[in-house]
């Protein structure tokens, strides 16, 4: 039965590699070809994992084939707009100037119930506040409210605010992320000083420490006994 462990491990690592090669997308935002790939890879890996009579090669070969084809298609999608349209489709405007565009809804086989559901998920309960709603190629709906219905911004109110910084993780679960420390032009000396100021003897006592561009530090100590 050790064979079961080894086969499962090999196929699992292969599937992870495949998902990793697909790039930084969440499952909910996959293009149709990527969604198909995810489903197929999962099924292809499961078959030789369960049936030891099937050679591993019969699972690995189709998975590798799909990964290569996916990589080729994704590069072609980037290089050619026409190819991208064929493979991924085009976004469709389903609400324009507050009116539902029925031909677009029918063309996309998108029901009013589905539209209302997507609007609610986007935090919009009143259709009359929607200037544009676009059905994206991923199936999600992007909503652009009327200017008067958009949340007030500091700029709209004539307020001057400081730009926020992007927090960068410097210590994660007790380990110093040296690459990030160097990117911020900070050294271990600075880190040790900050830790001392917060009562930590070493990075091992820190669960999370982030620094942003403005130098603001966010610190969470490790729980006792963790």
């Amino acid at each position, binding site marked *: 039965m050790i064979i079961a462990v080894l086969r499962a491990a090999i196929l699992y690592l292969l599937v992870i590699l495949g998902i990793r090669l697909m790039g930084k997308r969440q499952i909910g935002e996959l293009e149709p070809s990527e969604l198909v790939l995810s489903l197929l890879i999962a099924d292809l890996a499961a078959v030789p994992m369960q049936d030891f009579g099937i050679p591993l*090669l019969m699972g690995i070969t189709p998975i590798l084939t799909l990964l290569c084809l996916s990589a080729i298609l994704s*590069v072609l999608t980037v290089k050619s707009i026409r190819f991208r349209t064929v493979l991924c489709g085009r976004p469709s405007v389903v609400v324009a100037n507050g009116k539902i565009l029925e031909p677009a809804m029918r063309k996309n086989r998108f029901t009013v119930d589905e539209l209302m559901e997507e609007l609610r998920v986007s935090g919009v309960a009143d259709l009359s506040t929607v200037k544009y709603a676009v059905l994206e190629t991923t199936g999600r709906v992007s909503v652009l409210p009327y200017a008067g219905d958009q949340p007030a911004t500091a700029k709209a109110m004539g307020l001057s605010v400081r730009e926020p910084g992007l927090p960068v993780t410097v210590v994660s679960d007790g380990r110093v992320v040296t690459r990030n420390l160097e990117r911020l032009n900070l050294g271990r000396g600075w880190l040790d000083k900050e830790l001392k100021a917060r009562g930590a003897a070493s990075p091992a006592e820190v669960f999370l420490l982030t620094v942003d561009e403005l130098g603001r530090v966010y610190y969470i100590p490790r729980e006792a006994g963790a």
Partner: protein
Amino acid sequence: MRQLWTAAALLAVLAAGLLLLGRGVDGLVAPLAEDLTRASEAARAGDWETAEALTRQASETWEAAGDRLRLAEPHQSVGEISALLEEAALNARLRDPEGCMAAVRRAVRALNALGEAERVTLGNLF
């Protein structure tokens, strides 16, 4: 573009490797099928020494290639052919003409099916 060429190259290598593997299986299967056919004719003619030698040789050749075959072929198919070849060799040793010819016939059919499955044909594609 580098990603595209890398993926295309990997796909080409995979396809070439598997084509070679298929040719290898075919190269093993075809001579075995021929030897078994000759063994069957020898058994029909009463030449049991030849029949026994050919069936035993076919069985040993298949066993020697077993590990390699199991890398790419369903284990059940490989095992079935092993059993059929052993049966043919046993029947040849026991001088049982009908048993030997029947086992040889089934073994040849199974070998041809395995070889056929590796060929790029419309039937296999669809």
